[in-house]
């Protein structure tokens, strides 16, 4: 017995119901009876000639990386784009997107986090105004087909053998990393090439790169050519960290700069909101219902300080934001997580600088690796 959707072969994970066996491992994505064929919900594309409508031209290095990625994809290879935070990984994909659309091929853009799906969809709509770009994630499942489908990786179960080009953003992020069911969805959804994007590499990905399953394209220079922010690390007892965060938020508030304070646990957000209330602090984490609205308000500068869990560590661009990490030595902050967090600073041409502060009781290996990796990327800030 084998489930064609998640490859489950464990008989204990199959159930019998009125004459048919079905897989329980992936049942929360819809019941899949044995022998049932997975059906895709989308139609094929017609060939479309499009060009990205960019506010800024790609830098020479971005253009080179973009063409190199396309060249590998044309040869039928999977590609991994290893680019620094804010280097423009999404922009590097545009040439490949246009090429596949020209051939009438189907494109999927799958992301680990729901929040980032909404942001990327908005960006793609601005760049490709003539295309139908649909977002498919929790709360957005009424329209499932478009020229480009942007979805969470969970939603890929709806699209078996659907995508000629599957762009996977943040492949080393939770919940995709280490999840073999989601990995199966990715394999099932893609009938062509995969284009993976990330600023950080986890051991599983590194193993696949070493096995030449991906061609690597690197880019460590941000478009504005300013270096990545190297966080300042301060070793302080926890009580002093509270005080330090208060002082820093006060300083940034006076400078009219917004701040994101990253905390390790959801329950930490309410304490900091109380502590920093005079600076207009607001919490955001996975259990808060109106996350989209909060992000919108933060973008409009209604809140000066956002207290967040690792929910916002990736894919979010807020011009001029400063970042503070509380208890950076907590196990939830891996070196990849910290690199992504400090990558929120200095992403825009208009605000290429900023401050990243890392507060901890001791400098863990994760913190040291984060700092050394960012410094290494700054030294190699060119396409390799």
């Amino acid at each position, binding site marked *: 017995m084998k489930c064609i959707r998640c490859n489950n072969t464990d008989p204990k*994970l199959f159930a019998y*119901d*009125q004459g048919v066996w079905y897989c329980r491992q992936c*049942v*929360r994505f819809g*019941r899949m009876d044995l022998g049932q064929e997975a059906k895709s919900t989308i139609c094929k594309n017609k060939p479309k000639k499009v060009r990205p409508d960019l506010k800024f031209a790609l830098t020479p290095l971005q253009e080179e990386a973009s063409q190199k990625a396309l060249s590998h994809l044309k040869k039928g290879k999977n590609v991994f784009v290893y680019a620094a935070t804010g280097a423009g990984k999404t922009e590097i994909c545009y040439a490949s997107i246009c090429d596949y659309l020209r051939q009438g091929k189907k494109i999927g853009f799958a992301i680990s986090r729901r929040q980032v799906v909404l942001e990327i969809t908005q960006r793609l709509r601005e760049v490709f105004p003539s295309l139908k770009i649909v977002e498919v994630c929790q709360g957005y499942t009424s329209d499932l087909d478009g020229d480009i489908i942007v979805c969470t990786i969970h939603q890929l179960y709806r699209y078996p053998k659907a995508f000629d080009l599957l762009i996977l953003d943040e492949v080393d992020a939770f919940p995709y990393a280490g999840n073999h069911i989601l990995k199966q969805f990715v394999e099932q959804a893609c009938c062509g090439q995969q284009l993976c994007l990330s600023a950080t590499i986890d051991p599983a990905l590194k193993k696949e790169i070493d096995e030449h399953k991906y061609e690597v394209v690197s880019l460590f220079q941000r478009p504005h050519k300013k270096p990545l922010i190297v966080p300042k690390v301060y070793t302080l007892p926890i009580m002093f960290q509270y005080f330090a965060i208060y002082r820093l938020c006060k300083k940034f508030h006076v400078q009219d700069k917004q701040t994101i304070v990253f905390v390790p646990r959801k329950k930490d957000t309410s304490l900091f909101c109380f502590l920093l209330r005079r600076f207009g602090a607001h919490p955001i984490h996975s259990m808060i219902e109106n996350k989209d609205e909060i992000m919108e308000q933060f973008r409009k500068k209604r809140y000066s300080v956002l207290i967040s869990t690792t929910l916002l560590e990736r894919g979010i661009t807020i011009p001029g934001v400063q970042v503070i990490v509380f208890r950076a030595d907590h196990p939830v902050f891996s070196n990849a997580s910290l690199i992504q967090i400090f990558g929120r600073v200095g992403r825009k041409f208009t605000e290429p600088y900023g401050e990243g502060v890392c507060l901890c009781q001791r400098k863990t290996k994760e913190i040291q690796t984060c700092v050394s990796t960012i410094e290494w990327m700054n030294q190699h800030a060119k396409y390799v």
Partner: protein
Amino acid sequence: MDESTCKICLEKEQDIPISFFLDDEVIVCKKCLERFRVHKKTYRIHNVNYHILYEYDTWIEGLFFQFKEQRDIVLKDIFLYAEKDFLKKKLKSFDCIALCSGEEKRALRGFEPVLEIFKEVKEPIASPFYRTDSIKQSSLSKEQRKQIHCSLKKKICYPIRNRSRQLLLDDVITTGQTIKAALLLISCRDVLVLAAHPLWIEEHADDQIKHSFWK
């Protein structure tokens, strides 16, 4: 000895609970059991006792969705797992009557959710109702839900014993309109609901009474 697998999280049960020595199989692990928000309170509304087992939250909502909409029939046993023996004894003295889904839903699922859930603790269960539409209550507005009495009907030739101890069964109560409509067709003094929405609980906070049902 094979470890039991939890039917919810599919993890092997590491702690061996006492029930393992009494049952053949542990169906729900300790961690998943702890996630149910047990309510076990009774509310008296218009002379009818509403006995509520759980509070409806995202955890139980997900389980209902997986059971009813994803047709994961295995989950029928998990909702009453912790209270199975208690409810078996309690429901002995009642004639149980189950509410129903629409015909289309029943045909699609291949089963009636409320009947399947309560089958473990009570047989037979009467099913005298039918619906003339298949629209989910949760997709309707508050005003639209009040019209449920138009679509919920009683089967004419269905025999119902006229016993004083009739117990109406339902899985979820949100506004209470479906149960109200059922009570217009069959008078019962007691209703047992698996899970009540927090808004319904809040609205009827003053109607809560002490009742021997949960003792």
